[in-house]
């Protein structure tokens, strides 16, 4: 075939691929896909997986300090779920040809990203409630959208995650309700947590639409169906009336309801802070990476011992 024929063949395949997506079909690992589709998915899915794994750190630190057994079991179950979600997602990325070893190496070498939100510290027990309510609430909006994603394995991983994560959001919301209707000391703690987590949560949805050059292509290929700004606005509209009902203040003096659009209008996000944290200079970036590396190194002898045992057992069986 000449180069021109090859180009023509690719254009035909691309057309057939985009028609499948328009029909709502799922793309599966065996199917032809444009290289750009594969690359975008590997980037998104591995970042999502790393976020679940690093996300265990800020909450894990409170397991031993939970105020009672019930709260401790709930937090343990939630953190365990996050490890499981990381596994579902690494699996989905592996179906696209990237290896687990490569992804872990990228994370530990600082080449991979994970959600900015986990680079903020959990200072009090109230943070555990607010993280469930805000951070998991925001994640559910994103993951519900991604459960309709055109790539089969990623879509199925998100269906499973969303179902389990509704427990994460509700246990956090329950804590916030209890504290907001509790003692003056509890109200003070939960208001302080809301003040610290509000803006980092809004940043979780990513840059503004005009700063997200990938979005139109991701929407065209059915990877995303809603933009960052749309999801962010939905989150604000869901949460603000509930916070008001609970007597909690949103740390945004210009927040107001806009009758025309039906939206709660919020102030501009501090994008300098957003980019600073992404580039590695957030309050806990170094601490999180150091904890991951330490866990990886501490586990090395276990991985090696199991591998050596399996090798010996299979040599004896042969």
């Amino acid at each position, binding site marked *: 075939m000449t180069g021109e024929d090859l180009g023509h063949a690719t254009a035909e395949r691309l057309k057939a691929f985009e028609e499948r997506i328009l029909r709502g*079909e*799922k793309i*599966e690992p*065996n199917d032809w896909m444009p290289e750009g589709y594969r690359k975008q998915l590997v980037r998104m899915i591995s970042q999502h997986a790393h976020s679940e794994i690093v996300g265990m750190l800020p909450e894990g630190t409170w397991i031993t300090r939970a105020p009672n057994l*019930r709260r401790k*079991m*709930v937090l343990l*179950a939630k953190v*365990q*779920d996050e490890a*499981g979600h990381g*596994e*579902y997602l690494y*699996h*989905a990325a*592996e179906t696209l040809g990237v*290896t*687990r*070893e*490569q992804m*872990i*190496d990228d994370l530990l070498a600082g080449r991979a990203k994970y959600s900015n939100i986990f680079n903020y510290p959990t200072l009090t027990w109230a943070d555990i409630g607010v993280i469930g309510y805000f951070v998991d609430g925001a994640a559910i909006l994103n993951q519900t959208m991604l459960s309709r994603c055109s790539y*089969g394995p990623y879509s*199925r*991983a998100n269906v499973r995650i969303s179902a*389990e994560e*509704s*427990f994460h*959001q*509700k*246990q956090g*919301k*329950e804590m916030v*309700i209890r504290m907001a*209707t509790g003692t003056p000391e509890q109200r003070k703690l939960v208001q302080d947590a809301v003040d610290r987590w509000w803006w980092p949560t809004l940043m979780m949805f990513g840059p503004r639409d005009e700063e997200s050059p990938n979005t139109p292509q991701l929407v065209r290929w059915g990877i995303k169906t809603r933009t960052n700004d749309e999801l962010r606005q939905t989150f604000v509209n869901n949460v603000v009336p*509930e916070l008001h*009902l*609970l007597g909690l203040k949103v740390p945004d003096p210009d927040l107001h309801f806009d009758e025309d659009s039906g939206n709660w209008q919020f102030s501009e996000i501090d994008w300098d802070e957003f980019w600073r944290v992404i580039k590695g200079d957030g309050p806990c970036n170094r601490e999180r990476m150091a904890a991951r590396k330490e866990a990886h190194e501490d586990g*090395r002898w276990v*991985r*090696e011992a*199991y*591998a050596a*045992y*399996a090798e010996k*057992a*299979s040599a004896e069986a042969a």
Partner: protein
Amino acid sequence: MDTQWPRFFVFKQDQQGEPFLNCGTVHAADGELALLNARDVFVRRPDCAGLWVVLAEHITSQSLDERAKREPAAEVGEGSEEAFVVFAKRDHRRQHELVGEVIAKSAEAALSAAWGQFAATGTTVIWVVPKRRIFASEDADGEAWFAPAKDKAYRHSAFYRTNSLMREIKANQAEDDG
């Protein structure tokens, strides 16, 4: 770069009598540990009656497109016959599910027999696995492995009364205002 161990495909049966469904993969040093990892990753909540794991390299896959381009000569096979377990992807939305078994002399021959016997309309990919390569949970494991999840009601969102708590607060405030 160090090892993350080999990759095993995981098949889960939600209830007795239902087919085993592919639910993902885990990494483990051997089959026994792969079963334990699969239990931790995929059975944190109830609805599991059995688990199978298979090393990725023991699965032979053929899609409808690959089938069209196959070499029929390769499908005869040499050596002794053995049982292969067959998984089919029935349509583009579903995961691979267990559909049955065939006896064949090679994976290629097993695929050929499987397409003949099990390919219903809409089947897009078939996998075959030598039966002796499957690591399966035992019925006796059920009590220790799968039953504990049933008692952990707090893993379900319905356990948390957030909606009724919010309604109560709203009603109380309306009363105060009135």
